[in-house]
Protein backbone atom coordinates (compact mmCIF):
# COMPACT_ATOMS: atom_id res chain seq x y z
CA UNK A 1 0.00 0.00 0.00
CA UNK A 2 2.67 2.51 0.98
CA UNK A 3 5.35 2.90 -1.63
CA UNK A 4 8.03 3.95 0.84
CA UNK A 5 6.78 3.33 4.34
CA UNK A 6 8.12 5.68 6.96
CA UNK A 7 9.69 3.64 9.71
CA UNK A 8 9.25 6.32 12.36
CA UNK A 9 8.06 9.88 12.63
CA UNK A 10 11.33 11.57 13.58
CA UNK A 11 11.97 12.89 10.06
CA UNK A 12 8.50 14.47 10.03
CA UNK A 13 8.90 15.93 13.50
CA UNK A 14 12.22 17.52 12.56
CA UNK A 15 10.84 18.91 9.30
CA UNK A 16 7.76 20.30 11.08
CA UNK A 17 9.95 21.93 13.73
CA UNK A 18 12.03 23.55 11.01
CA UNK A 19 8.96 24.95 9.29
CA UNK A 20 7.49 26.26 12.53
CA UNK A 21 10.75 28.00 13.35
CA UNK A 22 10.80 29.61 9.89
CA UNK A 23 7.21 30.71 9.95
CA UNK A 24 6.88 32.19 13.42
CA UNK A 25 7.44 35.92 13.15
CA UNK A 26 7.46 39.27 14.86
CA UNK A 27 3.77 39.63 13.98
CA UNK A 28 2.98 36.61 16.17
CA UNK A 29 4.75 38.31 19.07
CA UNK A 30 2.81 41.53 18.42
CA UNK A 31 -0.44 39.55 18.39
CA UNK A 32 0.39 37.94 21.73
CA UNK A 33 1.31 41.31 23.23
CA UNK A 34 -1.95 42.84 22.03
CA UNK A 35 -3.95 40.06 23.63
CA UNK A 36 -1.88 40.29 26.81
CA UNK A 37 -2.55 44.01 26.94
CA UNK A 38 -6.30 43.58 26.58
CA UNK A 39 -6.40 40.77 29.17
CA UNK A 40 -4.36 42.84 31.60
CA UNK A 41 -6.74 45.71 31.09
CA UNK A 42 -9.70 43.45 31.88
CA UNK A 43 -8.01 42.14 35.02
CA UNK A 44 -7.20 45.68 36.07
CA UNK A 45 -10.82 46.81 35.64
CA UNK A 46 -12.23 43.77 37.43
CA UNK A 47 -9.93 44.28 40.39
CA UNK A 48 -10.65 48.00 40.41
CA UNK A 49 -14.41 47.42 40.59
CA UNK A 50 -14.12 44.92 43.43
CA UNK A 51 -11.67 47.08 45.34
CA UNK A 52 -13.78 50.18 44.82
CA UNK A 53 -16.83 48.41 46.24
CA UNK A 54 -14.84 47.30 49.26
CA UNK A 55 -13.54 50.80 49.79
CA UNK A 56 -17.04 52.20 49.36
CA UNK A 57 -18.12 50.09 52.33
CA UNK A 58 -15.35 51.58 54.45
CA UNK A 59 -15.45 55.22 53.39
CA UNK A 60 -18.35 55.95 51.00
CA UNK A 61 -18.06 59.73 51.28
CA UNK A 62 -14.52 59.64 49.88
CA UNK A 63 -15.16 56.86 47.36
CA UNK A 64 -18.00 58.88 45.90
CA UNK A 65 -15.54 61.62 44.92
CA UNK A 66 -13.06 59.26 43.24
CA UNK A 67 -15.19 56.95 41.11
CA UNK A 68 -12.79 57.27 38.21
CA UNK A 69 -10.01 54.67 38.20
CA UNK A 70 -7.15 57.12 37.74
CA UNK A 71 -8.50 59.39 40.46
CA UNK A 72 -9.00 56.42 42.77
CA UNK A 73 -5.42 55.26 42.29
CA UNK A 74 -3.88 58.68 42.83
CA UNK A 75 -6.00 59.32 45.94
CA UNK A 76 -5.37 55.95 47.60
CA UNK A 77 -1.66 56.18 46.90
CA UNK A 78 -1.62 58.92 49.54
CA UNK A 79 -2.83 56.32 52.04
CA UNK A 80 -5.98 54.30 52.53
CA UNK A 81 -6.98 55.36 56.05
CA UNK A 82 -9.85 57.80 56.57
CA UNK A 83 -7.73 60.53 58.12
CA UNK A 84 -5.12 60.26 55.35
CA UNK A 85 -7.49 60.35 52.43
CA UNK A 86 -9.91 62.90 53.92
CA UNK A 87 -7.17 65.51 54.23
CA UNK A 88 -6.11 64.80 50.64
CA UNK A 89 -9.68 65.25 49.41
CA UNK A 90 -10.47 68.05 51.83
CA UNK A 91 -13.46 66.35 53.44
CA UNK A 92 -14.37 65.33 56.96
CA UNK A 93 -12.95 62.05 58.27
CA UNK A 94 -16.30 61.21 59.85
CA UNK A 95 -18.00 58.49 57.91
CA UNK A 96 -21.22 56.49 57.89
CA UNK A 97 -19.16 53.61 56.52
CA UNK A 98 -18.17 50.44 58.32
CA UNK A 99 -15.15 50.82 60.58
CA UNK A 100 -12.15 48.67 59.75
CA UNK A 101 -9.22 47.97 62.05
CA UNK A 102 -5.67 48.45 60.83
CA UNK A 103 -5.26 44.76 60.28
CA UNK A 104 -8.51 44.58 58.28
CA UNK A 105 -7.37 47.54 56.21
CA UNK A 106 -4.35 45.53 55.07
CA UNK A 107 -6.70 43.63 52.75
CA UNK A 108 -7.43 46.92 51.02
CA UNK A 109 -3.79 48.00 50.99
CA UNK A 110 -2.64 44.67 49.48
CA UNK A 111 -5.31 44.73 46.78
CA UNK A 112 -4.47 48.32 46.02
CA UNK A 113 -0.80 47.44 45.53
CA UNK A 114 -1.84 44.68 43.10
CA UNK A 115 -4.00 47.16 41.19
CA UNK A 116 -1.10 49.59 40.90
CA UNK A 117 1.09 46.70 39.74
CA UNK A 118 -1.41 45.68 37.05
CA UNK A 119 -1.77 49.24 35.90
CA UNK A 120 2.00 49.54 35.58
CA UNK A 121 2.19 46.25 33.71
CA UNK A 122 -0.37 47.41 31.18
CA UNK A 123 1.53 50.64 30.60
CA UNK A 124 4.72 48.64 30.16
CA UNK A 125 3.11 46.36 27.55
CA UNK A 126 1.68 49.35 25.69
CA UNK A 127 5.10 50.98 25.57
CA UNK A 128 6.67 47.74 24.38
CA UNK A 129 4.15 47.41 21.56
CA UNK A 130 4.76 51.04 20.62
CA UNK A 131 8.52 50.66 20.50
CA UNK A 132 8.34 47.45 18.46
CA UNK A 133 6.05 49.13 15.94
CA UNK A 134 8.13 52.28 15.77
CA UNK A 135 11.24 50.25 15.10
CA UNK A 136 9.76 47.89 12.53
CA UNK A 137 6.64 49.41 11.00
CA UNK A 138 7.32 53.12 11.08
CA UNK A 139 4.69 54.13 8.50
CA UNK A 140 1.90 52.26 10.20
CA UNK A 141 3.08 53.57 13.56
CA UNK A 142 2.94 57.19 12.41
CA UNK A 143 -0.18 57.03 10.26
CA UNK A 144 -2.47 54.85 12.38
CA UNK A 145 -0.86 55.30 15.79
CA UNK A 146 0.56 52.44 17.90
CA UNK A 147 -2.70 51.18 19.41
CA UNK A 148 -4.63 50.98 16.18
CA UNK A 149 -1.65 49.63 14.23
CA UNK A 150 -1.13 46.82 16.74
CA UNK A 151 -4.82 45.93 16.76
CA UNK A 152 -4.95 45.88 12.96
CA UNK A 153 -1.97 43.52 12.78
CA UNK A 154 -3.53 41.36 15.47
CA UNK A 155 -6.92 41.21 13.74
CA UNK A 156 -5.56 40.55 10.26
CA UNK A 157 -2.98 38.05 11.52
CA UNK A 158 0.12 39.65 10.06
CA UNK A 159 1.45 42.71 8.30
CA UNK A 160 1.45 40.67 5.10
CA UNK A 161 -2.29 40.02 5.37
CA UNK A 162 -2.88 43.65 6.24
CA UNK A 163 -0.91 44.91 3.27
CA UNK A 164 -2.83 42.63 0.91
CA UNK A 165 -6.17 43.69 2.31
CA UNK A 166 -8.42 46.12 0.40
CA UNK A 167 -8.79 49.33 2.37
CA UNK A 168 -12.55 48.86 2.58
CA UNK A 169 -11.98 45.72 4.62
CA UNK A 170 -9.32 47.35 6.75
CA UNK A 171 -11.82 50.10 7.50
CA UNK A 172 -14.21 47.68 9.19
CA UNK A 173 -11.65 45.35 10.86
CA UNK A 174 -12.82 44.82 14.40
CA UNK A 175 -16.49 45.39 13.52
CA UNK A 176 -17.14 41.77 12.54
CA UNK A 177 -20.02 41.56 14.97
CA UNK A 178 -22.00 44.22 13.20
CA UNK A 179 -21.05 43.00 9.73
CA UNK A 180 -22.21 39.46 10.40
CA UNK A 181 -24.54 40.27 13.26
CA UNK A 182 -27.71 40.00 11.28
CA UNK A 183 -29.71 41.72 8.65
CA UNK A 184 -31.15 44.52 10.73
CA UNK A 185 -27.84 46.31 11.29
CA UNK A 186 -26.51 48.56 8.59
CA UNK A 187 -23.02 48.03 7.23
CA UNK A 188 -20.57 49.50 9.74
CA UNK A 189 -18.48 52.50 8.78
CA UNK A 190 -15.52 51.72 11.00
CA UNK A 191 -13.88 49.07 13.13
CA UNK A 192 -10.85 49.67 15.34
CA UNK A 193 -9.81 52.71 13.30
CA UNK A 194 -12.72 54.52 14.94
CA UNK A 195 -10.31 55.70 17.64
CA UNK A 196 -8.03 57.39 15.15
CA UNK A 197 -7.68 61.07 16.10
CA UNK A 198 -8.84 62.25 12.66
CA UNK A 199 -12.08 60.30 13.00
CA UNK A 200 -12.56 61.28 16.63
CA UNK A 201 -12.15 64.93 15.73
CA UNK A 202 -14.69 64.78 12.91
CA UNK A 203 -18.35 65.61 13.27
CA UNK A 204 -20.69 62.61 13.34
CA UNK A 205 -21.91 63.32 9.85
CA UNK A 206 -18.43 63.23 8.34
CA UNK A 207 -17.01 60.35 10.41
CA UNK A 208 -17.85 57.75 7.78
CA UNK A 209 -16.20 59.59 4.92
CA UNK A 210 -13.14 60.43 6.95
CA UNK A 211 -12.89 56.81 8.09
CA UNK A 212 -12.60 55.89 4.43
CA UNK A 213 -9.67 58.28 3.98
CA UNK A 214 -7.95 57.07 7.15
CA UNK A 215 -8.41 53.44 6.09
CA UNK A 216 -7.01 54.09 2.66
CA UNK A 217 -3.93 55.87 4.02
CA UNK A 218 -3.43 53.23 6.72
CA UNK A 219 -3.59 50.57 4.04
CA UNK A 220 -1.01 52.51 2.05
CA UNK A 221 1.22 52.72 5.11
CA UNK A 222 0.95 48.95 5.64
CA UNK A 223 1.93 48.37 2.04
CA UNK A 224 4.97 50.64 2.30
CA UNK A 225 6.03 48.94 5.53
CA UNK A 226 5.66 45.51 4.00
CA UNK A 227 7.26 46.14 0.63
CA UNK A 228 9.90 48.81 1.11
CA UNK A 229 10.35 49.60 4.81
CA UNK A 230 11.16 53.20 3.87
CA UNK A 231 9.74 55.97 6.03
CA UNK A 232 7.16 57.67 3.82
CA UNK A 233 4.90 58.58 6.71
CA UNK A 234 5.37 62.33 6.23
CA UNK A 235 4.10 62.13 2.69
CA UNK A 236 1.20 59.83 3.59
CA UNK A 237 0.13 62.02 6.51
CA UNK A 238 0.25 65.10 4.28
CA UNK A 239 -2.01 63.42 1.74
CA UNK A 240 -4.37 62.31 4.49
CA UNK A 241 -4.49 65.84 5.91
CA UNK A 242 -5.31 67.23 2.47
CA UNK A 243 -8.12 64.78 1.80
CA UNK A 244 -9.58 65.17 5.29
CA UNK A 245 -9.59 68.95 4.91
CA UNK A 246 -11.26 68.63 1.55
CA UNK A 247 -14.11 66.67 3.11
CA UNK A 248 -14.38 69.06 6.04
CA UNK A 249 -14.51 72.09 3.76
CA UNK A 250 -17.23 70.44 1.74
CA UNK A 251 -15.43 70.53 -1.57
Amino acid sequence: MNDKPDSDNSKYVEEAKKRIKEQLSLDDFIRKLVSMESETKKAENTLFKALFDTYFLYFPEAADLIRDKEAFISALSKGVKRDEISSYLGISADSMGYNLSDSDLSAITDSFNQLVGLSGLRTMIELKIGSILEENYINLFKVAGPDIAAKLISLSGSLKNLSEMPSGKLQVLGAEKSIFGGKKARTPKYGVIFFHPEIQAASDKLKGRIARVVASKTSLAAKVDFFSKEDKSGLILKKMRKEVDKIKNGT
Partner: protein
Amino acid sequence: MELKRVMDNVCWAFDGRKRLVSLNLTPSKQVYGEELFEFQGKEYREWNPFRSKMSAALYKGARPLELKEGDTVLYLGASSGTTVSHVSDIISNGGKVYAVEISEEMGVNLVLLSEIRKNIFPIIGDARKVGELGMAVTSCDFLYQDIAQRDQTDIFIKNVSKFLKRGGQAAIALKTKSIDVSADTRRIVDREVKKISEHFKILASIDLYPYQKGHSLIIIKKG
Protein backbone atom coordinates in the same frame (compact mmCIF):
# COMPACT_ATOMS: atom_id res chain seq x y z
CA MET B 1 -18.02 0.18 35.42
CA GLU B 2 -18.80 -1.65 32.23
CA LEU B 3 -17.32 -1.28 28.74
CA LYS B 4 -18.99 -1.84 25.41
CA ARG B 5 -16.79 -1.96 22.33
CA VAL B 6 -17.43 0.55 19.52
CA MET B 7 -14.36 0.38 17.32
CA ASP B 8 -10.80 -0.84 17.84
CA ASN B 9 -9.62 0.64 21.15
CA VAL B 10 -12.78 2.72 21.53
CA CYS B 11 -15.59 1.87 23.96
CA TRP B 12 -18.65 3.26 25.64
CA ALA B 13 -18.01 3.30 29.35
CA PHE B 14 -20.97 2.99 31.68
CA ASP B 15 -20.53 4.18 35.22
CA GLY B 16 -23.74 5.97 36.02
CA ARG B 17 -23.51 7.81 32.73
CA LYS B 18 -22.46 6.86 29.25
CA ARG B 19 -19.12 8.14 28.06
CA LEU B 20 -16.97 7.49 25.04
CA VAL B 21 -13.42 6.45 25.89
CA SER B 22 -10.33 5.36 24.01
CA LEU B 23 -7.49 3.15 25.20
CA ASN B 24 -4.58 5.39 26.17
CA LEU B 25 -1.58 4.65 23.98
CA THR B 26 0.65 6.59 26.37
CA PRO B 27 -0.58 5.67 29.86
CA SER B 28 -0.63 8.35 32.54
CA LYS B 29 -0.25 11.10 29.92
CA GLN B 30 -3.10 13.51 29.21
CA VAL B 31 -3.34 15.48 25.97
CA TYR B 32 -5.92 18.21 26.57
CA GLY B 33 -6.97 17.85 30.17
CA GLU B 34 -9.32 14.94 29.51
CA GLU B 35 -10.16 12.52 32.30
CA LEU B 36 -8.10 9.35 32.62
CA PHE B 37 -9.31 6.22 34.35
CA GLU B 38 -8.30 2.63 34.83
CA PHE B 39 -10.38 -0.41 34.13
CA GLN B 40 -9.13 -3.98 34.43
CA GLY B 41 -5.50 -2.92 34.37
CA LYS B 42 -5.86 -0.73 31.28
CA GLU B 43 -5.97 3.04 31.13
CA TYR B 44 -8.62 4.85 29.14
CA ARG B 45 -9.04 8.52 28.14
CA GLU B 46 -12.41 10.19 27.93
CA TRP B 47 -13.18 11.30 24.37
CA ASN B 48 -15.02 14.56 24.88
CA PRO B 49 -17.74 15.32 22.28
CA PHE B 50 -17.50 19.04 23.01
CA ARG B 51 -13.85 19.01 22.03
CA SER B 52 -13.83 16.55 19.15
CA LYS B 53 -16.24 16.38 16.22
CA MET B 54 -15.49 12.75 15.57
CA SER B 55 -16.57 11.93 19.10
CA ALA B 56 -19.65 14.15 18.78
CA ALA B 57 -20.72 12.18 15.70
CA LEU B 58 -20.53 8.91 17.66
CA TYR B 59 -22.56 10.47 20.47
CA LYS B 60 -25.13 11.54 17.90
CA GLY B 61 -25.53 7.95 16.77
CA ALA B 62 -23.09 7.53 13.89
CA ARG B 63 -22.26 3.93 12.99
CA PRO B 64 -18.72 2.98 14.02
CA LEU B 65 -16.20 4.28 11.50
CA GLU B 66 -14.12 1.90 9.46
CA LEU B 67 -11.00 2.90 11.23
CA LYS B 68 -8.95 0.10 12.73
CA GLU B 69 -5.75 -0.76 14.49
CA GLY B 70 -2.79 -0.57 12.11
CA ASP B 71 -4.48 1.77 9.63
CA THR B 72 -2.74 4.56 7.77
CA VAL B 73 -4.77 7.74 8.21
CA LEU B 74 -4.54 11.08 6.46
CA TYR B 75 -5.80 13.78 8.82
CA LEU B 76 -6.27 17.26 7.35
CA GLY B 77 -6.67 20.14 9.75
CA ALA B 78 -5.02 18.54 12.76
CA SER B 79 -4.97 21.75 14.80
CA SER B 80 -3.38 21.18 18.19
CA GLY B 81 -4.01 17.45 18.00
CA THR B 82 -7.03 16.84 20.22
CA THR B 83 -8.86 14.48 17.88
CA VAL B 84 -5.59 13.30 16.35
CA SER B 85 -4.59 11.90 19.74
CA HIS B 86 -7.69 9.69 19.81
CA VAL B 87 -7.09 8.55 16.23
CA SER B 88 -3.59 7.75 17.43
CA ASP B 89 -5.12 5.63 20.23
CA ILE B 90 -7.31 3.77 17.72
CA ILE B 91 -4.67 2.90 15.14
CA SER B 92 -2.21 2.13 17.93
CA ASN B 93 1.49 1.47 17.44
CA GLY B 94 1.08 -0.41 14.18
CA GLY B 95 -0.71 2.48 12.46
CA LYS B 96 0.27 5.89 11.20
CA VAL B 97 -1.61 9.15 11.16
CA TYR B 98 -0.29 11.84 8.83
CA ALA B 99 -1.51 15.03 10.45
CA VAL B 100 -1.55 18.11 8.24
CA GLU B 101 -1.93 21.54 9.82
CA ILE B 102 -1.34 24.91 8.18
CA SER B 103 -0.98 27.13 11.24
CA GLU B 104 2.47 27.06 12.75
CA GLU B 105 1.09 28.18 16.09
CA MET B 106 -1.28 25.21 16.30
CA GLY B 107 1.47 23.06 14.87
CA VAL B 108 3.62 23.58 17.94
CA ASN B 109 1.26 21.52 20.10
CA LEU B 110 0.97 18.92 17.36
CA VAL B 111 4.75 18.54 17.18
CA LEU B 112 5.02 18.25 20.96
CA LEU B 113 2.35 15.53 20.84
CA SER B 114 4.17 13.72 18.02
CA GLU B 115 7.28 13.47 20.12
CA ILE B 116 5.36 11.42 22.68
CA ARG B 117 3.10 9.54 20.26
CA LYS B 118 5.32 8.03 17.62
CA ASN B 119 2.46 7.10 15.30
CA ILE B 120 1.67 10.76 14.57
CA PHE B 121 3.52 12.18 11.56
CA PRO B 122 3.12 15.97 11.71
CA ILE B 123 3.18 18.00 8.52
CA ILE B 124 3.03 21.80 8.58
CA GLY B 125 1.45 22.78 5.29
CA ASP B 126 -1.64 23.52 3.25
CA ALA B 127 -4.30 20.82 2.86
CA ARG B 128 -4.87 22.08 -0.68
CA LYS B 129 -1.38 20.95 -1.64
CA VAL B 130 -0.93 17.69 0.23
CA GLY B 131 0.91 16.17 -2.72
CA GLU B 132 3.65 18.77 -2.43
CA LEU B 133 4.33 18.40 1.25
CA GLY B 134 6.89 15.63 0.98
CA MET B 135 4.70 12.89 2.41
CA ALA B 136 6.08 9.45 1.56
CA VAL B 137 2.70 7.75 1.59
CA THR B 138 0.43 7.96 -1.45
CA SER B 139 -2.55 6.01 -0.21
CA CYS B 140 -4.41 5.84 3.08
CA ASP B 141 -7.02 3.58 4.69
CA PHE B 142 -9.03 6.42 6.20
CA LEU B 143 -9.17 10.13 5.54
CA TYR B 144 -10.49 12.75 7.92
CA GLN B 145 -10.80 16.44 7.25
CA ASP B 146 -11.65 19.25 9.61
CA ILE B 147 -10.68 22.58 8.11
CA ALA B 148 -12.68 25.79 8.27
CA GLN B 149 -12.29 27.02 4.71
CA ARG B 150 -14.78 28.24 2.17
CA ASP B 151 -13.69 25.58 -0.32
CA GLN B 152 -13.48 22.79 2.26
CA THR B 153 -15.72 20.48 0.22
CA ASP B 154 -13.59 20.82 -2.91
CA ILE B 155 -10.44 20.19 -0.89
CA PHE B 156 -12.08 17.09 0.56
CA ILE B 157 -13.16 15.72 -2.82
CA LYS B 158 -9.72 16.32 -4.29
CA ASN B 159 -7.87 14.68 -1.44
CA VAL B 160 -10.20 11.69 -1.16
CA SER B 161 -9.88 11.10 -4.91
CA LYS B 162 -6.13 11.25 -4.71
CA PHE B 163 -5.21 9.59 -1.44
CA LEU B 164 -7.96 7.31 -0.16
CA LYS B 165 -7.76 3.65 -1.15
CA ARG B 166 -10.74 2.17 -3.01
CA GLY B 167 -13.43 0.95 -0.67
CA GLY B 168 -12.11 3.13 2.11
CA GLN B 169 -14.13 5.43 4.33
CA ALA B 170 -13.60 9.13 4.81
CA ALA B 171 -15.26 11.81 6.91
CA ILE B 172 -15.45 15.57 6.69
CA ALA B 173 -16.43 17.88 9.51
CA LEU B 174 -18.32 20.55 7.63
CA LYS B 175 -18.32 24.00 9.12
CA THR B 176 -21.20 25.76 7.44
CA LYS B 177 -20.29 29.20 8.78
CA SER B 178 -17.06 29.08 6.76
CA ILE B 179 -18.95 28.52 3.54
CA ASP B 180 -21.58 31.20 3.99
CA VAL B 181 -22.23 33.10 7.20
CA SER B 182 -25.71 34.27 6.34
CA ALA B 183 -27.30 31.35 4.48
CA ASP B 184 -29.38 28.68 6.18
CA THR B 185 -27.26 25.90 7.69
CA ARG B 186 -29.44 23.03 6.48
CA ARG B 187 -29.45 24.34 2.92
CA ILE B 188 -25.66 24.57 2.86
CA VAL B 189 -25.29 21.05 4.20
CA ASP B 190 -27.73 19.72 1.60
CA ARG B 191 -25.86 21.49 -1.16
CA GLU B 192 -22.44 20.27 -0.03
CA VAL B 193 -23.71 16.72 0.47
CA LYS B 194 -25.05 16.78 -3.06
CA LYS B 195 -21.72 18.00 -4.35
CA ILE B 196 -19.87 15.18 -2.57
CA SER B 197 -22.44 12.58 -3.66
CA GLU B 198 -21.55 13.23 -7.29
CA HIS B 199 -18.18 11.64 -6.52
CA PHE B 200 -18.64 9.29 -3.59
CA LYS B 201 -21.29 7.31 -1.79
CA ILE B 202 -22.68 9.15 1.22
CA LEU B 203 -23.01 6.89 4.26
CA ALA B 204 -24.23 9.44 6.76
CA SER B 205 -24.66 13.14 7.36
CA ILE B 206 -24.89 13.99 11.03
CA ASP B 207 -25.68 17.34 12.58
CA LEU B 208 -23.37 17.65 15.60
CA TYR B 209 -25.66 19.94 17.59
CA PRO B 210 -25.55 20.44 20.60
CA TYR B 211 -21.95 19.25 20.96
CA GLN B 212 -20.66 21.42 18.11
CA LYS B 213 -22.73 24.29 16.77
CA GLY B 214 -23.00 24.80 13.01
CA HIS B 215 -21.08 21.64 12.24
CA SER B 216 -22.03 18.47 10.44
CA LEU B 217 -20.03 15.31 9.97
CA ILE B 218 -20.40 13.65 6.60
CA ILE B 219 -19.15 10.10 6.20
CA ILE B 220 -18.51 8.70 2.73
CA LYS B 221 -17.25 5.58 1.05
CA LYS B 222 -15.03 5.62 -2.00
CA GLY B 223 -16.25 3.16 -4.63
